[in-house]
């Protein structure tokens, strides 16, 4: 454990070479340290996301979380930025990938970097972490219950989310998937289909479906939190990153 941390907001160059804010938490010391991109969920660049970044820093990782809603207003409170995103049509896949690539370049450019960078995301961020594994030169990706990876959003939903499994042949890093058996999006059947497709493509991955857990079991401030799944999930995450980012 690293007791001494530095956490601050920095500016990085994201999609279209535009400047966006990012939250950086890192251990004190000369390193070298691996890096992790923490992808915030749809409710925004919120305190919970930044707490996750600090948790990674305390375990010896440089963690950065780009503000994917920066363009809706750089100084907005997270809930207001999320409201603007809802009203404004969210962010495009291209913009997300550009911002994540900017975070990747920022981390690798730090003098204390060991050159290895992973991604992690929860819920919508889980899908985006999977997407990053398909499109960016990262070293490991963690997908926590990302929906719409293999199935499109149902037609009754007004905002269409396209599946990303068609890009899986481009995956160039190991993937850890963490899911809940009671989740409906992705359902255990969808998780099995993704698992089978990655196996067919020869992509290194490990999927874990936790008992007595549904969508959002890592969320400490929601009823969906499940202590056993979350504790075991964090153990699996640090084991996975330890093997692939050291």
């Amino acid at each position: 454990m690293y007791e001494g941390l530095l956490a601050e907001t920095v500016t990085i160059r994201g999609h279209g070479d535009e400047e966006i804010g990012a939250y950086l938490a890192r251990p004190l010391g000369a390193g070298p340290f691996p890096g992790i991109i923490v992808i915030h969920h749809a409710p925004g660049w919120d305190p919970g996301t930044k707490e996750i970044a600090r948790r990674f820093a305390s375990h010896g990782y440089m963690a950065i979380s780009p503000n994917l809603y920066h363009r809706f207003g750089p100084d907005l409170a997270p809930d207001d930025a999320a409201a603007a995103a809802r009203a404004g049509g969210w962010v495009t896949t291209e913009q997300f990938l550009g911002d994540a690539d900017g975070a990747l370049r920022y981390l690798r450019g730090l003098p204390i970097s060991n050159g290895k960078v992973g991604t992690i995301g929860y819920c919508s961020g889980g899908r985006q972490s999977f997407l990053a594994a398909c499109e960016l030169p990262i070293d490991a990706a963690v997908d926590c219950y990302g929906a719409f990876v293999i199935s499109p959003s149902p037609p009754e939903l007004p905002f269409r989310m396209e599946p990303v499994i068609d890009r899986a042949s481009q995956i160039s890093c190991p993937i850890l998937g963490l899911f809940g058996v009671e989740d409906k999006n992705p359902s255990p059947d969808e998780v099995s289909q993704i698992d089978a497709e990655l196996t067919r493509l020869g992509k290194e991955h490990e999927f874990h479906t936790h008992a007595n857990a549904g969508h959002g079991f890592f969320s400490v401030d929601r009823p969906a939190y499940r202590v056993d799944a979350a504790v075991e999930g964090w153990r699996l995450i640090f084991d996975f990153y330890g093997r692939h980012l050291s």
Partner: protein
Amino acid sequence: MCTYIVEKTPVIGSAKGAAGWVTINTAVVAVDHPSHATLDHALLLDFVNSGRPVSERVALELSVESARELIAAMQTAVDAFDRAG
């Protein structure tokens, strides 16, 4: 899951929030993860003036069940007004 369920409707009226009374012209209605309510999903209702900063919105986060009850109460009230017309 993040549902991305969002509906928008024009409205005529005012709302009072952090910026005091503001004239509003749009209601943004979503069912998704809330920011404050300790619920997995909630009805998210933003009353906004599209020409003003989003920080002036008046926001509600309601459980889906209480949202249904609110909708019914609103319907009952406007129906009563129509009958009294």
